């Protein structure tokens, strides 16, 4: 077989991956259309279009523009952020059960929010979100720093490669447990903090308003830029540290960029929507069979699937228990958990 025979096949593979990306994008658009039209007040697609393009102040226009659009936009942002963050996290830790919460972002955000309520009397949602984000960033930095401490003479990977997957996971678990304990203590002592915490913890994209979308958007965009820059390095790193170094990759830098991306993405999502860690855990497992192990494809696939999944779960939550609504975090857990068990049981666990 000559060299000319392999090249077209490699090109064919790329074309297939590109067209799958288009399919996923279409699925996300469909989910967004559902999210805009379905709900306590169903809106026909034509009216929805009218509201989006030429609003005239009808009831439907108001529902769409002030409620459904921000809700959908936040769902898309959080879904993309959590999907990408989950794939990054599983890649960096080489652990198929890792989720972004492993970096301590969820507990960091929770602790910062309840503390700020008690200490500063913070009262509006926007205030919480800033503090939640700050808490998520601080927790993640602490985990990264702790995970980088490499003591003892036995450390074979000398040369300052930064934290290893194992030290990162250990530090993340320890910091999360500590923050969780502190949060519980604060919440027990303060009723107002308890109320906010309960609401935040279940995970929701409803009634956040357009301002929240604009607030988290820059963080998500920055996180996505870092994730894109991180993908090739992560590909090299997934072949082992020695191979990655041999390919000219700076290991410590790659890990640091990855952790920064995960922190920004999941920190923004968690601060705005509460704990939706299931997205980050499950979505990469859905994306991987379609994309393969190349992170340059896995990350965008995970983002699109994450957003579509989050929106669909949210739509389901709106229609299953009329006249009330089920929070999207609850729906995700109710549908997601059995599904995940099935997934794990039917396919052999993935080694990363």
């Amino acid at each position, binding site marked *: 077989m000559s060299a000319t025979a392999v090249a077209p096949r490699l090109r064919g*593979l790329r074309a297939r991956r590109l067209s799958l990306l288009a399919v996923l994008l279409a699925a996300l658009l469909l989910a967004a259309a559902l999210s805009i039209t379905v709900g306590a007040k169903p809106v026909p697609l034509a009216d929805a279009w009218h509201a989006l393009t030429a609003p005239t102040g009808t009831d439907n226009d108001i529902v769409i523009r002030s409620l459904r659009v921000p809700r959908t936009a936040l769902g898309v942002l959080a879904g993309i952020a959590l999907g990408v963050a989950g794939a990054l996290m599983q890649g960096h830790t080489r652990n198929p059960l890792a989720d972004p919460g492993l970096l301590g972002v969820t507990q960091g955000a929770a602790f910062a929010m309840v503390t700020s309520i008690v200490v500063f009397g913070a009262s509006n949602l926007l205030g919480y979100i800033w503090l939640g984000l700050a808490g998520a960033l601080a927790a993640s930095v602490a985990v990264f720093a702790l995970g980088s401490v490499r003591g003892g003479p036995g450390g074979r990977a000398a040369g300052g490669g930064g934290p290893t997957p194992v030290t990162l996971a250990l530090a993340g678990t320890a910091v999360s447990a500590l923050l969780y304990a502190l949060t519980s203590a604060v919440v027990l002592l303060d009723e107002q903090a308890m109320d906010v915490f309960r609401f935040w913890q279940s995970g929701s994209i409803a009634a956040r308003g357009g301002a929240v979308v604009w607030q988290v958007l820059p963080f998500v965009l920055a996180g996505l830029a870092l994730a894109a820059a991180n993908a090739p390095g992560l590909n090299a790193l997934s072949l082992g540290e020695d191979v990655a170094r041999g390919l000219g990759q*700076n290991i410590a830098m790659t890990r640091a960029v990855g952790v920064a991306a995960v922190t920004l993405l999941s920190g923004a999502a968690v601060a705005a929507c509460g704990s939706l860690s299931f997205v980050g855990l499950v979505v990469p497992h859905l994306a991987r069979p379609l994309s393969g192990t190349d992170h340059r494809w896995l990350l965008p696939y995970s983002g699109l699937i994450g957003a579509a999944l989050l929106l669909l779960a949210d739509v389901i939550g709106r229609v299953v228990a009329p006249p009330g609504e089920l929070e999207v975090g609850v729906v995700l857990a109710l549908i997601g958990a059995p599904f995940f068990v099935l997934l794990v049981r039917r396919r052999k666990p993935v*080694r990363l």
Partner: protein
Amino acid sequence: MRLQAAKVRLGYGERVVVDGLDLGIEAGTVTAIIGPNGCGKSTLLRALGRLLKPMGGEVLLDGKRIDRLPTREVAKVLGVLPQAPTAPEGLTVADLVARGRHPHQTWYRQWSSGDEEAVAAALEMTGLADLAERPLDELSGGQRQRAWISMALAQGTDLLLLDEPTTFLDLAHQVEVLELVRHLHRAAGRTVVMVLHDLNLAARYADTLVAMRAGRVAAAGAPREVLTEELMGEVFELDAKVIEDPVAGTPLVVPIRPRPARQEGDRPDQRA
């Protein structure tokens, strides 16, 4: 001198494995590093490939200190394949080989026709073109090792460091991999340094043997000069007869018995 270790001191943490070692690799040669378990041969190879930073001394690539060159530039001339590398599950041969192009890609230019040609050529050369779409875990041990070598080839370097490329392979696959190495050397004049366990295959496929013992070079030179009965006793503590390989004419070691007293300076295998 393509690659040179000058008075290198190597180790992990506080444990020194290699101390004050000098070694030069000539351009266009195949060098095999041999020695008993724990003698520091893998450690030396890792240092030559800048995977391990020396505690003292220096490693020179084309006369320049390797740790002062940008690692990505080094990756364009020097390829390293560590011992028994692992890949994520489901990774296809084509994807693995494509990752060899990493040092040639920038964040804005992830794939070029040059990359495509290099990958296709590497797959052809290792005879894996027909298996390009197959996941790595479905291949035989020999095919898998060829896939990893193929990745190193796609990297497009004329200097290749291979750490025990034949571990875990049966004899037929060992010969298959070494024939590939010889082909790479003869067809494109690549310089190859590899750590090998099998002395007879090392003698057959390398121009130069470097025998190590307890972190030092015990002997270096043409296989015929290095693989002697004295050296077998001295380095491997093995009573052996060295005869001529009836096929290749290179030295062939026939072991008789281990020498009874193991001496100080032996270390347990660090890779255990």
